[in-house]
């Protein structure tokens, strides 16, 4: 027994190197963001980085504008992606799994290459680069990230609910609004996370799609860091983190609920 306990303890200790690694390269750097955000360049504690953000019209405007763009992108992705996920998960409408793979594939292509491809498309159609190109590029870049989670939830959905609703005389419209939509909500929520988060944090995409005419919040952060304004950049990063954390809480709550429901059933 003794040797067994020894080996066992040795094996669970195998997580220690990774724990140390995580502490140095994940936890400590995150704490550094907080530290830099609340200190000035000389190392004195200050809130000036945050007041600077609030009083600086340009940064605040960029922030609001970025959230707007992110919301529009997310909404368009839901509008385009939801029907696609529905069709893909419905065996009557789409039988081949290859289709699903085709929709997921673009997720793995370098985002810069995808963005340059969008620029190429607009060049090809001789359309001007600008806000329209920005939104198209964002939707193009992140649509697969919306379709995939919704498809996944619909795939796992118990289809007898739909049949039950139909048997009980619900119209197709009713089945959709009262059964399909509520049941697929967790997928939509994680899709929203996967689209909203990157849209608000990207920096190179906007630059390339608008010939540097429109700035998003990510670009502002990158510029500050590049220009040596680490403290201000860290404060802006922290603001972004808080927003992402807040949206995360929403979807987490939702997921926890569905997990419980699943457990009960």
């Amino acid at each position: 027994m003794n040797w067994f306990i020894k080996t066992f303890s040795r094996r669970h200790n195998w997580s220690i190197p990774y724990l140390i690694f995580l502490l140095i390269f994940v936890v400590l750097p995150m704490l550094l963001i907080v530290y830099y955000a609340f200190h000035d360049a000389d190392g004195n504690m200050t809130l000036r980085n945050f007041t600077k953000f609030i009083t600086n019209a340009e940064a605040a405007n960029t922030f609001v504008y970025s959230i707007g763009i992110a919301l529009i992108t997310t909404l368009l992705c839901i509008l385009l992606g939801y029907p696609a996920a529905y069709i893909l998960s419905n065996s009557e409408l789409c039988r081949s799994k290859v289709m699903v793979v085709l929709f997921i594939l673009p997720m793995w292509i370098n985002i810069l290459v995808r963005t340059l491809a969008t620029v190429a498309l607009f060049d090809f159609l001789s359309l001007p680069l600008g806000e329209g190109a920005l939104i198209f590029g964002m939707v193009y870049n992140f649509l697969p990230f919306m379709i995939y989670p919704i498809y996944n939830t619909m795939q796992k959905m118990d289809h007898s609910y739909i049949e039950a609703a139909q048997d009980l005389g619900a119209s197709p419209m009713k089945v959709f609004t009262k059964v399909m939509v509520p049941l697929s909500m967790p997928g939509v929520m994680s899709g929203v996370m996967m689209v909203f988060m990157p849209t608000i944090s990207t920096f190179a995409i906007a630059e390339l799609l608008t010939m540097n005419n429109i700035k998003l919040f990510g670009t502002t952060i990158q510029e500050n860091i590049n220009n040596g304004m680490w403290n201000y950049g860290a404060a802006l990063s922290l603001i972004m983190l808080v927003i992402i954390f807040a949206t995360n809480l929403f979807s987490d709550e939702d997921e926890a609920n569905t997990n419980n429901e699943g457990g009960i059933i």
Partner: protein
Amino acid sequence: MKKFFAQTYLWLLLAMLYAPILIIAIFSFTETKVLGNWTGFSTKLYTSLFSGGVHHSLLTAIENTFIIAIISAAVSTLLGSVAAIGIFNLHHKKKMIMNTLNNIPMLNPDIITGISLFLLFVSLGITQGYTTVVLAHITFCTPYVVLCVMPRLQQMNPNIYEAALDLGATPMQALRKVLIPEIKPGMISGFILAFTLSIDDFAVTIFTIGTEGLETLSTYIYADARKGGLTPELRPLSTIIFATVLLLLIVINIRSARSKKQSNAQ
């Protein structure tokens, strides 16, 4: 009728998703400066891409990208597999903490990972370059390796390992002959995944690459695109990257399909 509309919708969306890439791929075989203006088939862009001249640093960038990807993927696979075995054997609460920590790099947006690591390296006074990029890539790749190896451990029959010990194998032998063969498919998938992630990365790399002139493919594309919009040489380059990623993904998919079949057969 309904099916027809559904199929049309899917194909239209796919056309939208793939049109840009296709245009780039098609026009990588012609010399024109302006897209849409076909000036005859030519592979000149491909040869000029690799033959030096203005783009002499491209070869170095490709070399750097691959070396960084191979080192990061190898270290991530090792670190992640060892960690997965450790986490798998942890007790409930500690396991949850480790899993949460493991999730942070995956949930964090790239820009935050990049900036946080940038701040770490400047605070510690480490000059940014090869080492910092590799460390950064290991940071965001390892969680995915852990996620690839973990299911293999959960599927594994724990009695096999104990049986090996009962039959007189040393823990080292049991590890080599029982545990590693069981988790090997997960390790390989993890390695390929880490490799693709590393090659693909831009946001983290740009913050950790420093100013010593080191370039990877992503930062090269970024610098080039920033300078001159869409320079013709980026077309064959994008096409090659797209084809490579496609190939790697097909390999991963075939592998996972095969392992599913195997586990079904068992």
